[in-house]
């Protein structure tokens, strides 16, 4: 069974204080790893897809990286508007009766103080 563990559960940063969020996973053949941002009371917003170890994606102050066992979401010089819950999900191989199910972690709640 696919599993995703995110750490820390919560992270408080000062504005401009860079840090990283971790997503550890086990999956029988990774098809893709996904990062989402979720604001309170809203649906998750898609950020990145990573497909293979060594791949990196960037968007504004966020950079996602991937190894064979984990992914990191690096936040450089965060601003208060970066405060949100960040979710990681993995997708195993499609084929047969599989449809490419996403397995989500519990998320990291990021708070950035001005």
């Amino acid at each position, binding site marked *: 069974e696919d599993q995703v563990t995110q750490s820390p559960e919560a992270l408080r940063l000062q504005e401009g204080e860079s840090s990283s969020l971790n997503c550890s996973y086990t999956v029988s053949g990774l098809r*893709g790893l*996904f990062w989402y941002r979720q604001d309170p009371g809203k649906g998750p*917003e898609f950020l990145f897809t990573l497909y293979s170890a060594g791949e990196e994606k960037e968007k504004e102050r966020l950079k996602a990286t991937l190894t064979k066992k984990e992914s990191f979401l690096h936040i450089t010089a965060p601003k208060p508007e970066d405060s949100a819950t960040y979710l990681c999900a993995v*997708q195993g191989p*499609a084929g047969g009766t599989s*449809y490419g199910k996403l397995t989500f972690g*519990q998320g990291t709640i990021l708070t950035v103080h001005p």
Partner: protein
Amino acid sequence: SQTIHQWPATLVQPVGSPLSLECTVEGTSNPNLYWYRQAAGRGLQLLFYSVGIGQISSEVPQNLSASRPQDRQFILSSKKLLLSDSGFYLCAWSVIAGGAQYFGPGTRLLVL
């Protein structure tokens, strides 16, 4: 561009009452559709997915059911709500079975 709608945004229902939540997608054809539930402070739990009209697969046996009467419409239903059905219900779509899923704004359900 593609958009996904869910309604209602919030719903308060008594125990034992029926439920119908609707999700529609615009700007794409033959999407894969998904229903998730998110309990407070927890991750997303996949409830149902559909790869086409009338094709529904259930991930977790429970008090809920889903239907897909049209290509871009997905409905979540219950005949009798339980207290444990309270939560945040999210609909999502994807182009193919693989790839990113895109979520709607969600419906907050409170069963009293």
